[in-house]
């Protein structure tokens, strides 16, 4: 009975968190910060795994360090710099606070988050779903992450629910990215989650990311999309305008965190408060070398996860990162806490679970 009541309150808590995440305005961040502090205080005497913290925090630390160098060199520190830092830290610290409190039960809280997010989407939008079937929502990004996680865990029931919700929330890139991430998992499984293959795939992904950015800087992507008639909702035009501002220099140095937001707000372009391309934003903020360092930090994370834990967890980290990078390519999910909270929670859950439901592979 106690467990049922506890479960009910956990779901209610996560329902509230996800309803807040989906709501506009900045007051939600205050509530989330207060919840974080509550979890930190309640779990202060519990043990943490330093390895897990390093593996999850490393890319964010690299982003801040490299980004700050660009910010100070270009004297481009503004309110937007602080805002971006908060957007990056808030969901990470929230997931961390959950880990501090729940410890090895993080996989349970990920399930609770999934149920809470389902209710947070279906209850307010149920009426519209009955009328129009699909109701576009940012929850799509979270459901894609859950789909990748449950496919890794081979929990096909939850996987199926995540698929249905992805279809209902109607975001093209989420479907494509999530399916591709699961295919990567399948490919690695064929080769028994080989570490070298995982790192090789990340190397290829990094090259593809740079080729994509080069196509944007050279104007090729814009010309191709316009020529073939692909509707990008004005994105490629905006990419062209921003890259032109920075001299269309693919090998540029980092301009600092928040510089893109400052530029867009100065231009006052309607409907384009954000660039809708986090990879391009990262490239501008960190520069060519900085972005390579950022991508390398992910490679280090995969290596550490493979070494300190096991290669199947490395597979989850790789597939989730590839999913994230595909979302980064066409949207600005790096500031969506509705997406980042489940992703970081999944990372902590995977690194703290003791008995994953997997085949036993040779180490």
């Amino acid at each position, binding site marked *: 009975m106690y467990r049922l009541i506890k479960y009910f309150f956990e779901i209610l808590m996560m329902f509230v968190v996800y309803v807040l995440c989906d709501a506009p305005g900045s007051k939600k961040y205050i509530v989330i910060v207060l919840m974080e502090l509550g979890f930190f205080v309640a779990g202060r005497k519990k043990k943490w795994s330093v390895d897990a913290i390093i593996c999850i925090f490393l890319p964010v630390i690299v982003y801040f360090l490299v980004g700050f160098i660009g910010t100070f060199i270009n004297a481009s520190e503004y309110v937007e710099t602080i805002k971006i830092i908060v957007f990056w830290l808030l969901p990470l610290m929230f997931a961390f606070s959950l880990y501090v409190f729940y410890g090895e039960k993080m996989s349970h809280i990920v399930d609770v988050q999934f149920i809470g997010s389902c209710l947070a989407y279906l209850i307010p939008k149920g009426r519209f779903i009955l009328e129009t079937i699909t109701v576009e929502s940012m929850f799509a990004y979270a459901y894609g992450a859950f789909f990748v996680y449950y496919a890794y865990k*081979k929990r096909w029931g939850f996987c199926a629910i995540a698929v249905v919700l992805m279809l209902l929330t109607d975001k093209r890139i989420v479907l494509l990215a999530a399916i591709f991430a699961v295919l990567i998992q399948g490919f690695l*499984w*064929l*080769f*028994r989650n*080989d570490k*070298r*293959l995982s790192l090789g795939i990340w190397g290829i992904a990094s090259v593809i990311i740079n080729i994509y950015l080069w196509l944007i800087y050279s104007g090729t992507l814009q*010309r*191709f999309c*316009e*020529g*073939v*008639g*692909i*509707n990008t909702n004005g994105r490629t035009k905006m990419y062209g305008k921003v890259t032109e501002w920075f001299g269309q220099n693919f090998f540029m140095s980092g301009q600092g965190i928040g510089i893109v937001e400052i530029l867009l707000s100065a231009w006052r372009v309607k409907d384009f408060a954000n660039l809708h391309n986090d990879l391009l934003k990262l490239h501008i903020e960190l520069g060519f070398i900085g972005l390579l360092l950022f991508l390398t930090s992910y490679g280090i994370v995969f290596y550490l996860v493979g070494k300190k834990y096991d290669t199947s967890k490395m597979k989850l980290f790789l597939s989730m990162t590839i999913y994230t990078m595909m979302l980064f390519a066409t949207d600005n999910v790096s500031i969506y806490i509705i997406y980042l909270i489940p992703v970081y929670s999944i990372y902590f859950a995977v690194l703290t679970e003791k008995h994953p439901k997997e*085949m036993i592979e*040779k180490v």
Partner: protein
Amino acid sequence: MKGIYELMERFTVSLDDFIKYIMKKWKIVLAIILVVTTSFVFSATFLENKITIPPSEDYANLKEQEASFETYIDNSPLMKIDSTNVYERIIYLSNIIDRESLKNYVEAGRVWDNWDDENFRHYFSDLVTWYDSTTQTAEIKIQHYEEEECEKLAKYLVEQLHRYDNELRVLSGDALVSRDETIADVQTWYINRLDDIQGQLEHTGAGYMIEVTVPTAVVIGAMAGTILSLGCLFLLFLYGKKEV
């Protein structure tokens, strides 16, 4: 479920074993890469080193409309008229026997069949407006941006109307300089329509050409050949020819 996982486990392979198998079958890998690369190079040459994605049907239609509107705006005297300073002359018609036939003669443009300048015949219908009066009378308004041209048009029209029906009574009114807002409205409509078409063109596929040089074809062919050969060898390795 456990049985399915055990069955699926048989399809997993060791990367080291697979790499050794590839190295043993290097001739097959090389053969496939060479065949695919040659095909790509041959295709690129056959396609004259370019792959052209044609413009969409919508784009072609819009381009045609754009050209038509641009030609009209550049050449039509109506578009050149200053709506606050229009040269006008009214021709009064009376003793009309067949009103419909006469009206068609004027409005359909047949009245311009004998006009010297063949290129601009079809534009002058825009400068001539028929006004119905009582049964036996009507008025034709002629407008132009140049006084001399307006006189020329009026004189020509009177001559043609006399020729068409010698029972018709034609009286040419005085020359006028007036303001006509309807001309401004028509001009604005044409300009807005052209802007609208050009706006639509920006979002319609204009077509794209991808240049495929021989070195590019070699690189792409080699990559495709590598992927294909690895895929084929993987299947061979998996389904019983696991020689290490």
